[in-house]
């Protein structure tokens, strides 16, 4: 039995060495949604907002925002995109092409002006082949307010006020 206990030591060391095991609280908030809000296979735009707590001050001078869009199925080639242009009221727009129907996860890595790296990921589920998958919106049961610390459980994340496009009602 002792032999087996010895085996646990390298495993525990390995786990402890994982960078992802470290947790830190970031003062920055990142949120995103897609345009169209229910995308289909093909071109879309990922709209990202970056702000700083506690008053959600928009951050417009990031060095770079890189996004990696993966399918939830292992082994599918991710779609990569990035922007280095400045933001407007904390919003950044990155064109992207969804190459296949299904569930996607978008991972955002923002490098701020001072070199701080902020990450965030959100799921975009049920991307359909030709017509928007209107079923997907039904899963968006909880719209989080900006002060919430809970994990969003909606498919299309709307944690920021919607953009004002200046279109009269």
């Amino acid at each position, binding site marked *: 039995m002792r032999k087996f206990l010895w085996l646990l030591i390298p495993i525990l060391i390995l786990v402890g*060495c*994982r960078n992802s095991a470290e947790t830190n609280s970031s003062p920055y908030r990142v949120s995103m949604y897609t345009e169209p809000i229910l995308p289909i296979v093909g071109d879309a735009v990922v709209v990202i907002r970056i702000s700083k707590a506690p008053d959600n001050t928009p951050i417009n001078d990031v060095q770079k925002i890189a996004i990696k869009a993966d399918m939830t*199925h292992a082994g599918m*080639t*991710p779609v990569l995109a990035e922007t280095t242009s400045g933001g407007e009221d904390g919003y950044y727009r990155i064109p992207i092409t969804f190459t296949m129907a*299904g569930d996607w996860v978008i991972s955002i890595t923002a490098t701020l002006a001072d070199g701080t790296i902020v990450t965030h990921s959100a799921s975009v589920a049920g991307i359909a082949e030709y017509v928007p998958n209107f079923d997907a919106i*039904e899963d968006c049961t909880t719209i989080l307010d900006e002060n919430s610390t809970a994990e969003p459980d909606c498919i299309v994340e709307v944690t920021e006020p919607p953009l004002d496009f200046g279109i009269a009602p």
Partner: protein
Amino acid sequence: MTDLLELPFFKQMARWRYGRLLLQIPFTLIALLLIYDGFTGSQHAPENLATVGVWVHYRGILILILLFTGNLFCMGCPFTIPRTLAKRLSKRGKRFPRILRNKSLAIFSLLALFFTYEYLDMWANPALTAWVIIAYFGLSFALEALFTESAFCKYICPLGTFNFVYSALAPTQIRVKNRDVCRDCVGKECINGSYAPQTLIRLDTITVNGESAQKQVIHSPKGTLGCGTELFAPQIKSNLDCTLCLDCVRACPHDNIGWMTRRFGAELSDPSAWSKRWDISFLLIGLAFWGLLNAFGMIPPVYDLMQSLADGLGLTALGWSDEMVELVVFGIIFAVGGVILPSGSMVLAGFLTKMSQPHPLTPSPLHGEGESSAEKTNFTPFLHSVGKGGRGDRGRIRQTIGNFAPAFIPIGFGIWLAHYAFHLLSGLFTIVPTVQFFLIDHNITFLGDTPNWSLGGVDFAVIGVVQLVALMGGFIWSLALVQHISLREFRRDAMLPTLIWGSLVVLLMLVAVWIFAFNDMEMRGTVLFH
């Protein structure tokens, strides 16, 4: 026929007591790594070794290895290492229950694995994938501790069952070199083993070509166990149930067993190679249907079907959760596509074949279970009239189905290859950034300090060609087998049986073409009913 174990290196490895262990150790380390990363790594499937390794690379590489070399995965199977430990710990007193000594549990475990894979989106869940690996280790350990034979490998393991069936296509097989040696062998160590608690020495007199020679046989604590799946080497005619553990090679005191080359799929047209049992026939035919079912779960029409079923059965009106409705609907789809359709099709084809014959005394019932066409006797008409087992029509239909069942192996393989090749080739190089991600997460940067996520796979046009070749190859091979078996069994009356069983093969092919060529794959785990 060339004995691959006579090749340098293979020869030493095959006979060395720890030869298999040398192959198992790296597989075991990989399995442990997958469990570790599955639990502690990113739960985002494309970034985790467990999901990428198991559901993309393992499956794709496995199926190619099965075709070109044989059941090498079972040879290096990591799950048998704790099994060996269990063997030493247990008293190994009991046999596996007689009623379960068939493929029914293996069929159930295969279907259960396919079902949970789809229902729980295993392909997107690293922790669950790790649990599956642990379950394998645990089950093989427990069963080996409880029973004398390798019950897990022979009667339960879903992976092994898949490998057993499709290694029938491989150009290799375990065979004896000289049957005369086996005839004179006293101990039959290939199946009984050469293990003994105390050293025993025996002298065997072996006669080959009229010349006798004495051979000293030693049984000792360092001896080898016999075949765990209870295959008797001189009678092996197919790769079914052979884990390529090479225990028989090591145990044989006369160095009379080899890993021989043969033509691809040689056993498929050998009527004596396959038992004509219901369970085996259902397994061979069912696997082709399950290949379609598995691929069907990845195209958009499955969601329309699920919604229609939920609406049609009034499930959406019951106020159940989406997960519950999905469970019921998936259960129905699997029951119909995985059990009713394959079993119904094979029984119907068997019945129609029987009806198609102008007179009841067709040669088919006598073939199989060790009896070939050449062994027919003057008693044939009498035996035909009662069926071999004396059970009349039922026996004849079972024999007919058993004769044609191996013809479904190539098309089934083609379907699985088309599916798994899609995942393997489309994500061929994704293992590189996933490994980089794992290493960087442990501050190891010799493969770079940033994962190269741009590494993807092969162009989809190329994948399409590979899928087409896989499907067409399997289809043509299966059709040729159907014709061969019909001619062998029914001679001048072969046309209708060829049409009946050929139609089933064509039907499978049409569905496969519809799934792979007329639908885009959709990697979706979210199912929402409305």
